[in-house]
């Protein structure tokens, strides 16, 4: 019972600190903006730890964060092998191929208004379909190794990326294009100097959506057969063999990889589209 009480006290105290911080006149400073969510996250962890210890929940059901951290530290080699297999080989290569080909396809399609009109609704529709389901088919086509995972990722990210890029390429209005025309700019110049920069916010929107989809695709595809490594493989076998602490460590890696991937895309976005209203006003 001690643990539960300590956790609850910590929770109340942290919440009070957060309220005080948010109400104080420093609430707009960078430091407070960082501390408040961090403190909130810490409370969740402490609550989790306290409840698991206080009610002595079996580690087979829910291991405490400290146990997970220990497992994480002890099995970094396994985690690294899984990380390279799933994230670096499967997700990132599929992401690169899928986004690049969708980008090129979008530029090609953009030249024909007819195709654009036909493709946008279909692309929007396909983007809403549960594409992860094709994983077993692609695994049987491309084999168990990372190639099939990359293929699943390619198919998953292609349409969101295509739709966003095509939409972005239509962002410039007639006046701006006419202006480029009066400068005697050809198609390529107009594309690179005017339309692609204008499309960038949309392109990055697509890239960000695709970043979260890529990890999902790579992990889920591993449920359908993979070599004896990879995060999806480890999670599904770990659940079966009741080594739940390793599964949580694996999930922690997935969370880190996902946030890092998304964060990297967001950082590049900020550097590329610094002129856009949604980026202005941010320090």
């Amino acid at each position, binding site marked *: 019972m001690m643990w539960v009480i300590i956790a609850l006290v910590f929770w109340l105290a942290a919440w009070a600190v*957060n309220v005080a911080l948010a109400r104080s006149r420093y609430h707009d400073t960078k430091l407070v903006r960082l501390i408040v969510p961090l403190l909130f996250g810490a409370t969740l962890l402490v609550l989790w730890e306290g409840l698991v210890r206080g009610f002595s929940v079996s580690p087979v059901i829910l291991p405490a964060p400290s146990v997970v951290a220990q497992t994480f530290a002890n099995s970094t080699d396994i985690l690294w092998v899984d990380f390279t297999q799933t994230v670096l080989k499967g997700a990132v290569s599929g992401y690169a191929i899928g986004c690049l080909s969708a980008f090129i396809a979008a530029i090609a399609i953009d030249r024909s208004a007819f195709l654009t009109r036909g493709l946008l609704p279909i692309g929007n529709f396909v983007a809403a379909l549960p594409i992860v389901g094709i994983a077993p088919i692609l695994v049987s086509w491309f084999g168990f190794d990372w190639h099939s995972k990359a293929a699943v990722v390619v198919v998953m990210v292609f349409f969101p990326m295509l739709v966003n890029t095509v939409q972005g390429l239509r962002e410039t209005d007639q006046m701006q294009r006419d202006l480029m025309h009066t400068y005697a700019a050809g198609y390529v110049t107009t594309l690179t100097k005017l339309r692609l920069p204008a499309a960038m916010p949309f392109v990055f929107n697509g890239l960000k959506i695709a970043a979260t989809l890529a990890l999902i695709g790579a992990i889920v595809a591993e449920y359908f057969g993979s070599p004896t490594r990879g995060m999806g493989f480890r999670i599904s076998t770990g659940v079966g063999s009741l080594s739940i602490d390793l599964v949580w460590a694996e999930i922690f890696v997935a969370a880190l990889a996902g946030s890092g991937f998304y964060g990297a895309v967001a950082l590049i976005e900020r550097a590329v589209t610094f002129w856009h209203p949604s980026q202005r006003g941010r320090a």
Partner: protein
Amino acid sequence: MRSLLPILTVLGAIVAIWYLAVAPMNVRVALDQVERSGAIVEPATSVERRATSVWRLMLDNSEHVAAGYALERPRLPTPAQVGQELWKTTGEMVLRGRALSKRSLILHGWITLKSTLSGFVLGTLLGILGAVAIVYSRVTRMSLMPWAIISQTIPIVALAPMIIVLSSQLGIEGRGLPKAIISAYLCYFPVLVGMVKGLQSPAIAQLDLLRTYSASGLQSFLKLRLPASVPYLFTSLKIGIAAALVGTIVGELPTGAVSGLGARILIGDQFGTPLAIWAALFTAAILAGLLVTFLDLSQRLILRRMGMPS
């Protein structure tokens, strides 16, 4: 209607490419089969054929290419085969009066739909409540919003097997609830983001106007903020329901479930019947299409009733 012709053209092109791709994809399997039934094939054994490219095989055995279009277990079925399988597991079952038998995709689609809808309702409620908390309380906004964003970069579907095992150990019978939790997790975020934007969309001047009417906080919420957020809500709901369906199907995948579209995909994979996988996939796609279309129609209807441009 202006875009009907382009859409049909693109669809036609997709089907045409599909049909063209069937021949090279299936030629090896087809040749193995005609060889077994006694026909003479160009490189005689399948070991030799494995080293030859599919294009070479198709050139040398042009009379057998057609066999690739009628395989029982094709690597890539033709659209017609998928359609037949779909009809066999839905329409024909209805005609024979066994619409809810275990082989019918209507039953499995219904099971998936139930979990999707309960997850969708749960996720939407969570999203709306979260958005209200975020809009009205600065502490929640500062502490919750960053974690809500981070939560989306975690591939939650990775948690699917965990959630299901956990809930069964906690004594929750049946798979409905854990699947609903996964799909709720996937669909709460679009709703949260959309509602935050929507609830904040009234201008300061409008909020001030309500204050001059001495409207209470609840009144300004019900009469101004909530109606203003409806268009944002519907846009989010359309994304959310598609995500919820993905969540349910993934929740059915990795745990040996026996019913639901995800389970059909899994069983088709384990028993090597690609047609069953394709039929389940298309049912899932049709389901997603119907759900999004339904939300789209109700959006137009409701916005028109509210006097907003739709």
